[in-house]
């Protein structure tokens, strides 16, 4: 799918991304991780074409891209149903059931909890049947229960629908538990990528995040130990 080759991105005079080369694996979940200020948001902006690289080439951008941010603005008090049917008339009931929104379809979005709203937005995104789903720290403002529910639901839907996902996550535990591929950005805007098992390198992660990590366990039950 999407390929970046030797991409350099500058904000003004400041170089944010440096010779980034990576291949976004189609129909897999990729997590983009890195310390604050490493350029994760900038990289996402490249994918949505909100930014252009100064050097390097980006090819293979899919036609249908959907974005889910940390906070998604809604300027009208739409009900869940109205949000889901904004671009299409028909609602997929199985998806709605998976998102635990069946009983909430007629509820206005402002009346839902943050977690429920974020799930509704996920439903909105999937209604567009995108090839690529970009998620920018989707779990940051959710409480723990909803963080896991959201990521678990995302993975189930991804396995069913086979769309490609790239998501920025702060929580390494979640990133390693719910992805197939990891893209690791460091302070200098350099990217390393690989399968989750290959990227589970304690030393590399400790250096990049400048924090000692003692153990990285990759299994479906999601746990990483911090020092």
């Amino acid at each position, binding site marked *: 799918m999407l390929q970046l080759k030797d991409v350099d991105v500058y904000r003004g005079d400041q170089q944010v991304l440096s010779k980034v080369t990576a291949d976004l694996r189609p129909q897999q979940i990729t997590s983009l991780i890195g310390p604050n200020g490493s350029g994760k948001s900038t990289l996402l902006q490249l994918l*949505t074409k909100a930014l252009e690289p100064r050097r390097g080439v980006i090819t293979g951008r899919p036609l249908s891209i959907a*974005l889910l941010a940390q906070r*998604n603005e809604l*300027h*009208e*008090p739409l009900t869940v149903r109205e949000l889901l049917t*904004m671009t299409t008339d028909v609602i997929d009931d199985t998806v709605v059931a998976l998102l635990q929104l069946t009983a909430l379809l007629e509820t206005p979005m402002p009346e839902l909890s943050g977690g429920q709203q974020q799930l509704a937005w996920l439903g909105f995104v999937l209604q567009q049947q995108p090839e690529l789903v970009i998620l920018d720290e989707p779990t940051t403002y959710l409480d723990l229960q909803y963080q896991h529910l959201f990521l678990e639901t995302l993975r189930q839907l991804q396995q069913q629908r086979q769309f490609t996902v790239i998501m920025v996550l702060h929580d390494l535990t979640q990133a390693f538990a719910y992805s197939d591929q990891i893209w690791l950005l460091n302070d200098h805007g350099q990217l390393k990528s690989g399968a989750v098992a290959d990227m589970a390198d304690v030393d590399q992660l400790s250096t990049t995040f400048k924090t000692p990590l003692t153990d990285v366990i990759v299994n479906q039950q999601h746990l990483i130990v911090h020092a």
Partner: protein
Amino acid sequence: MKQLYNWILGGVLLISIIIAMLIGSTTIAIHDLWQGNTQAWHMLLTYRLPRIIIAVVGGAILGGSGLLLQIVLRNRLIDASILGIMNGTQFVTIGSLVLLPASLNWHVGVGALGGILIMIGWRLFIPQNRPRLQMVLIGIATAMTFQALTNIASEGFGLPLPSLSTVTWADVMQLLIIVVIGLMLLILAWPNLKFYALSAQQVRLLGFNEPRTMWLILIAVGIWTGALTALLGVVFFLGAILPQIARLMAPRTKSQQLLPATMLWGSLLLINADTVARTILAPKELATSAVLLAISGPLFAVMLLKGSRHATT
């Protein structure tokens, strides 16, 4: 419930219109009209009716413009006056009258054209997509600048301030044509207005032609504002307040659906303010815009205080 609410507003409006037709510095008795008293009919048709029509229609587009701007700019704190558009169109209209005094008969149409000009200029030269309160401040600064320019332009020329007491049937015709054109633009834009519930970034990713919809609405608002300002003068805050009043009566309603109610409230407000302006100090007349300003300032403050949950940032 919403339908009933609109019907009630319509009914109150009808009553207000009838009252406006009958009272004033000279009271017209229904009795006289019924009997075909030509003097009564003459007064009604020459002076009262044009004025009433302009107040009702003008009030509607005042409210409508405010709501439409709030929708497409995703900002509930603004209207055409707060953004400086009204003062801008006034400046263009006054400027045209100074340069071409013969255009006085067409000043409503001139106002509308000025509205298009100012709207394009605003979109191109004024910073957009700033935080909501910042947009308000930028707008007020714009308004003040145009006000100063207007004062300079009209300074030695002794131009009459706009007033509803001097409106003619020619003005009514121009206004109605402008309203119809605006409505046609609105109808074209209508199906896409729902997407303004989403952020601009989301809409872009969905692939919808947001600029086209935005421009249709901005031009409609521009011509309506220009025409209105030529007739009424600059009236601050009402375009922003009227949608909130409509929303108060029907919470959890989407902005698009509030358009009829907002327009009805606008008509109600304007016709009654005009009636008050004509009668409260009879036989002298207050400027309608003065009556409106007396109400709108405090109302806007109340609106900001009450709505601070949604309004800020």
